[in-house]
């Protein structure tokens, strides 16, 4: 069992450190709730930010599909710029040559020699096929160049949005991290203070009991001495016995009184 001296020193240390501060266990529980709510708020906040920027990205896509791309294609077909003029010219020529009936145009029916007729027909079929391929190539080149501009435009609108979203999320993350660090420090401190206060209370209680016990013993010993003295100095035996009984009665009464005060049974 811990000696009274150690307990006294500990109590002094604990009382000096903790004073009369009351730190209920629930403060730690409350700090934990605050901590988890910070995490919840952070998640919720981030979701709102994602939703906000997703909405703007959808607006951009809708604008591109409904406004920008149709206007852009219209400008290309109208041939307002240098390249679109060139495209229109290439397209017109390629279309004309690809859609022409070469066999009919050359009138190979007038060629009586079968072998020559067959050879010319084959050559014209190859030419027709080649012109159709040319038309296809003009259209592919057009698609590539048009798609490149559409992608570039979309990127120029979406890029800054993504960048801003990242920036906002980074800033929020940093602020919430600070908040969580602060909360964790407070929670840690509260937990340590709760432990300390519990120990202070526990030791105070134990020392209180020991003090009461010591007081009872001291009081009993003092009264016993008085009783013995009374017996010794009594001139008559009966007087001595009466006084002894009276003092012992007082000892009993005082002991009970101390026990009640200190809570010692």
């Amino acid at each position, binding site marked *: 069992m*811990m*000696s009274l*001296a*150690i307990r006294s*020193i*500990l109590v002094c*240390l*604990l009382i000096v*450190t903790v004073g009369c501060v009351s730190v209920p266990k629930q403060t730690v529980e409350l700090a934990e709730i605050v901590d988890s709510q910070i995490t919840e708020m952070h998640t919720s906040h981030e979701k709102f930010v994602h939703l906000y920027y997703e909405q703007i990205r959808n*607006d*951009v896509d809708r*604008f591109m599909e409904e*406004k*920008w791309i149709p*206007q*852009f294609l219209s*400008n*290309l077909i109208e041939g*307002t*710029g*240098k*390249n*679109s003029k*060139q*495209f229109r010219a*290439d397209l017109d020529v390629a279309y004309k040559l690809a859609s022409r009936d070469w066999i009919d145009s050359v009138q190979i029916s007038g060629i009586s020699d079968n072998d020559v007729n067959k050879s010319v027909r084959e050559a014209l079929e190859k030419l027709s096929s080649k012109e159709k391929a040319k038309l296809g*190539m*003009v259209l592919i*080149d*057009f698609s590539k*160049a*048009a798609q*490149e*501009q559409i992608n*570039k*435009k979309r990127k120029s*609108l979406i890029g*800054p*949005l993504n960048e*801003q979203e990242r*920036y*906002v999320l980074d*800033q*929020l993350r*940093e*602020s919430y991290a*600070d908040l969580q*660090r*602060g909360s964790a*420090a*407070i929670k*840690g*401190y509260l*937990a*340590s*203070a709760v*432990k*300390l206060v519990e*120990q202070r209370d526990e*030791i105070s209680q134990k020392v209180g009991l020991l003090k009461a016990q010591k007081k009872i013993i001291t009081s009993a010993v003092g009264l016993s001495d008085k009783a013995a003295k009374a017996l010794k100095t009594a001139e008559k035996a009966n007087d001595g016995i009466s006084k002894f009984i009276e003092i012992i009665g007082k000892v009993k009464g005082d002991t009970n009184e101390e026990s009640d005060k200190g809570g010692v049974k």
Partner: protein
Amino acid sequence: MGYDFTDEANLTDDQLAGELAKLTPLTIDEITDILPEKVDKEHFKQLIDIVRSAESQNDKLVLFKDNVEKLGGVALTVLGKLLKFV
């Protein structure tokens, strides 16, 4: 062959300038206004250090009490010697 439709794209931008302006993200000022105000990092760190140091002190006292209970007399002797120096 290969085409470059940059001029046509620029022309489209000019034609739709009013609607494009509506799709611009928030300005830096608007963002700064919305975001939480930053803490003074240095001061914040100092506060955290102070609170952690107090927590550490508390933990040491708790540990001290546990050790005293375990070691009893030995701890008392050490404590007695320590107190003589104070």
